[in-house]
């Protein structure tokens, strides 16, 4: 279906996402530290962490089964595969016809499925706690995400990410349709939820009161932990890339004919993503972690918001 | 059907009245023996009426029917009833506490008579009826109704049997008056049925009195759904 060049472009773009992901995590941490009046670690710190973890021995719980050992691999495979379908640096994904935005969501679901199982497998109360909370969160985040996509698909046409982003690129800088505005609000909330940010989750602490994601992967170490963290970063980048490319197509090259335009577009993308990441980090410092059973309210708000988007679209 | 034109309506009217009086006799009394004699009287009058009808219609079968009526209903059946109930205690034979009081019963019976006249007028006015029918039909329907009323309103099993017999008489009169006799085979069949029915009910009455130590059907209410 595709010649070698397009395949190569797709693979390179995905590799770019995979490679860039820890950097984005670093940026967010840095911004967060700065807004909290700390110096913070280098933006490259996540790379150092990964490199270190990959070389370390692992400790595995004697209670765990093969599910626990397989889970990080599944997470990583799922997120990396998802990266193949997402237009990031370029306004297209050569594999758009193979996997659309729903496939990306499905792959995230697969990753989450195994994360949750891994949390249960080690027979620790922490794991169960994290899983149980994640069950609730994901159950609500899923419809919010889907409804957002519903609006986006209606407005920009279809679920093929390549053509969605392509359609967005035709607009001037910012998709200024009322329906998209509501979708944007919803999408932003969903991103906070999906990437485990305050007010949903606080990955920085290891307190049972606040943990969700961290509780599930608490038992991981060594290579496995590296894979878990990396896949988490990739997921974060993919979501932000979608946000940026679908809602703020500014600077995106209208066509791929001119090399400089493409390069500029890629640059713009990195800048935009970094900016949004900074925004997310900033939000994280401005709000407090919400009580667990208030979190659904926020997600329901996201659903409602995208629903309003749908209605706006139809009216 | 010859001769009907010259039939003096009086004879029929008077005998019909006699029938009704006998029937009322059943309604107002309490004791079984009184009932039985009222019934016997009623049946004799009925046989007379039948004979009159036979005379005027000239159908010989009706004579036979009249004779049968006299023999079976006025003689045999009362005998049978007396005989089988001889062993039943006397206190069982008295309608002490009917569902409908006696005075009210008379009133209702009167109403039923009126109703039968009204109904027969209504029902049969359109068709051509001879004098016999015109006179006897309302009476027969009254007998029918009063018999039903007796069965429904009384609690002595014996009296229900008598009620049945009154209905039977009403039916007989009805049949004879309306049709001037159906075929004899059927008549005999009907008589046989009645006779056997009375015998069977007498046996049953005896069993009831033996088993339940009463003839009050108020005590026969064990078989029900609740």
């Amino acid at each position, binding site marked *: 279906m595709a010649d070698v060049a397009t395949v190569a472009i797709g693979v390179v773009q995905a590799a770019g996402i995979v490679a860039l992901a820890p950097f984005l995590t670093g940026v967010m941490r840095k911004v967060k530290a700065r807004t909290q009046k700390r110096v913070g670690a280098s933006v490259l710190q996540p790379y150092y962490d990964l490199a270190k973890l990959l070389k370390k021995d*692992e400790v595995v*719980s004697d209670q765990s089964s093969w599910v626990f050992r397989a889970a990080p691999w599944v997470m990583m495979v*799922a997120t990396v595969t998802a990266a193949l379908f997402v237009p990031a640096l370029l306004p297209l994904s050569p594999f758009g016809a193979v996997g659309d935005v729903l496939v990306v969501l499905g792959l995230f679901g697969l990753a989450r499925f195994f994360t949750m199982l891994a949390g249960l497998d080690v027979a620790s109360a922490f794991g169960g706690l994290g*899983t149980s909370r994640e*069950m609730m969160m994901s159950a609500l985040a899923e419809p919010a995400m889907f409804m957002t996509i519903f609006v986006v698909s*209606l407005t920009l046409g279809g*679920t093929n990410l390549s053509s969605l982003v392509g359609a967005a690129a035709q607009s001037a800088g910012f998709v200024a349709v009322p329906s998209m505005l509501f979708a944007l609000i919803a999408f932003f909330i969903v991103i906070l939820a999906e990437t485990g940010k305050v007010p949903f989750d606080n990955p920085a602490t290891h307190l049972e009161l606040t943990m969700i994601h961290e509780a599930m992967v608490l038992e991981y170490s060594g290579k496995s932990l590296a894979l878990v963290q990396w896949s988490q970063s990739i997921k974060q980048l993919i979501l932000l890339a979608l946000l940026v490319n679908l809602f703020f197509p500014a600077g995106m090259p209208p066509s791929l004919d001119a090399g400089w335009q493409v390069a500029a577009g890629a640059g713009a993308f990195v800048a935009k993503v970094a900016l949004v990441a900074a925004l997310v980090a900033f939000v994280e410092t401005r709000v407090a972690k919400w009580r667990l059973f208030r979190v*659904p309210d926020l997600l329901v708000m996201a659903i409602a918001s995208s629903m309003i988007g749908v209605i706006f679209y139809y009216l | 059907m010859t001769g009907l034109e010259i039939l003096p309506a009086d004879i029929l009217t008077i005998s019909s009245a006699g029938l009704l009086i006998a029937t009322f006799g059943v309604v107002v009394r309490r004791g079984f023996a009184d009932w039985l004699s009222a019934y016997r009287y009623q049946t004799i009058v009925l046989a007379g009426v039948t004979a009159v009808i036979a005379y005027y219609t000239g159908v010989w079968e009706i004579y036979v029917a009249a004779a049968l009526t006299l023999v079976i209903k006025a003689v045999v059946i009362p005998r049978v009833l007396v005989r089988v109930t001889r062993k039943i205690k006397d206190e069982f034979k008295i309608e002490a506490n009917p*569902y409908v009081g006696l005075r009210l019963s008379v009133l209702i019976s009167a109403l039923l008579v009126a109703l039968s006249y009204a109904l027969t007028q209504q029902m049969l006015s359109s068709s051509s009826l001879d004098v016999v029918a015109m006179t006897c039909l309302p009476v027969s329907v009254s007998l029918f109704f009063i018999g039903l009323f007796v069965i429904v309103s009384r609690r002595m099993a014996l009296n229900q049997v008598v009620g049945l017999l009154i209905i039977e008489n009403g039916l007989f009169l009805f049949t004879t008056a309306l049709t001037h006799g159906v075929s004899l085979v059927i008549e005999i069949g009907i008589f046989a049925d009645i006779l056997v029915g009375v015998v069977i009910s007498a046996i049953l009455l005896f069993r009831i009195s033996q088993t339940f130590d009463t003839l009050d059907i108020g005590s026969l209410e064990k078989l029900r759904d609740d």
Partner: protein
Amino acid sequence: MIIGDGHSVLFYLVILAFIAGALVPLAFRNSRKASVASFAPGAAGSVLTIALAASIAVSGTALEMPLPFAAAATEIEFQFYIDGMSAFFMLIIGLVTLAVSIYSIGYSSEYHEKRSIRALGFLFNLFVLSMILVVASDNVFSFLVFWEAMSLASFFLVIYEHESEGSIRAGMTYIVMTHLGTAFILGSFLAMYFQTGSLSFDSFRSPGSPMPAYIRDIVFVLALVGFGTKAGLVPMHVWLPQAHPSAPSNVSALMSAVMIKTAIYGLARVTLDFAAPSSPDSAWWGMLMVVAGSASALIGVLYAAIEKDIKRALAFSSIENIGIVILGLGLSVVFLSFGLQALAAVALLASMYHSLNHAAFKSLLFMGAGSVLFGTHTKNMEQLGGLAKKMPWTALLFLIGAIAISGLPPLNGFASEWLTMQALLSSYQVPNVALQVSISFASIAFALTAGIALATFVRMFGATFLSRPRSKEAEHAKEVPKTMIAGMSVAAGLCIVFGILPFAATGMIASSFGLDESVASFNVLTVPYSVSGIESISSMSMPAVAVMMGAAGAAIAGFVLASGSRKTARKIYSTWDCGFGELNERMEYTASSLSQPIRTVFRALYKPRMTISKDRYSDSNPYMKKSMRVESETKDVFEDRLYAPAVKTAVGFFDRVRRIQTGKVNAYLLYVMIALALLLLLARVMP
């Protein structure tokens, strides 16, 4: 095109095989022999069924099979006609039965010397046979005969363990509900009969004069209620979570995976074949199905999410999946009403594909649950745990089923849910704002369902197979016999094949339902879009996704291995216990605690009640407790709010009616007279 003899022979062979499976075991007193004698012919018969159905479905032909004699009169006879639609459902039956028959050989050893295997084999085979004949039937009479025979056989299987009051009660609920449903179905068919004057399906398909709208509406509503009852559509679903778990697990698998599909068959037959919608006036049918379907999906999964009994949870999940199927069917009807043929094809494809997939993974999961029951003798998730180590094969196969049913790539559940989502998204083409908005609300329900389904199966797999065993039974569990593994593997294989190679399913569905094959071109699922000037094509290729996942896995493995400069070791050590000391199974999250947040969020539906009783050391000090006991329960709002009051009212009415039997002979005579008087009055009034 109607095909001939070879297929008829095959059809007779199918019938013979199952009859042999029913009767031959009756000759064996030995349980082991009896089980082989009944399930081996069952497996053979299902292979024949698959062959027959697949050849008809793929070739797009039809097989007509009148029996040589009339049962009672013309049209009161057994008459069979297998077209693509029948063949497709027959294929589902065949595939699942093959897996389940193999599985049953091992599974029935659970009952050896305790219960009659002969009865099990007899009923099992008759059950399957009646399902096959239901979908093959071509007139009202034979449809109903086999439909009720199917209900009856399954009813006896539900009360197979008949000493327990619970299973008798479940069976009663089931048979009464299903009989009520049959009454509606009969009403629906006979309404068509009223119109056409013939009981053959052929006349319904092409009536002499077109059916008037009101008849069609009646037909549809009755069919929806009737088949919906059998399918477990909310709110007629209450029997399903009682009955399916009560049956032996192999039968549960058949009931959940296949039997409720016969109801889908009936519904599809009526809505697409007999009374196919052709004008926007019928759009409300589809909308009703969309609403009922999405409500079922959501409510089913919400109850599945909190259920402790693993088989009951699976039964609730069947309600969910049937909801998704009916949602798809409803969308297809909506689209058809507006003449959107291509979209209708997509929705129908989604619906039927999901039927097929659900058959594969639900049978797998029920068989898995049966294996768990076989190994531990409990189906209460609270008492399970840690089975992944004791029963690794069962765990692996169950996990495949769980992934598939959660709608995750690369397995089959994802593919059909993808199509369903596409159908939902395509509702923008419906030229009616009210419908558009309603469908988008249904989309929320659908997405919520998908989210909760994921949670449900994480919990189910996790609580059953992972962490520590929570009871002695779970601790001493052993792997199940090979035949059971083999049976489950067949179903798991189907999950994988239909996932990775969708064309295996979609191509066949397209040919058997006469759909345009472009919606299901070779392994790429496509749906065209055309929104306000933007033309695009949404597409997805499961094989490619699978290949990419494999490639990504290889790349990652290569990278990780290459990046580690030295060989790393893996140390086995106990789980981190916060320095507390030995962790034990009482400290872990149980199935109930896992679902507690969901229970809290959706408390409006569950009406949870919690009783906490404390035993204190002394009354003066409330803080020192000897022990605490927490009991929580949830209610089924449908049973409490809908069925209980309705049954109570009806029963109260009948109770008053029957009391006319007072025992008083005088009263009885009075009735006779009143009846006479009333009838005379009536006679006067009547012309």
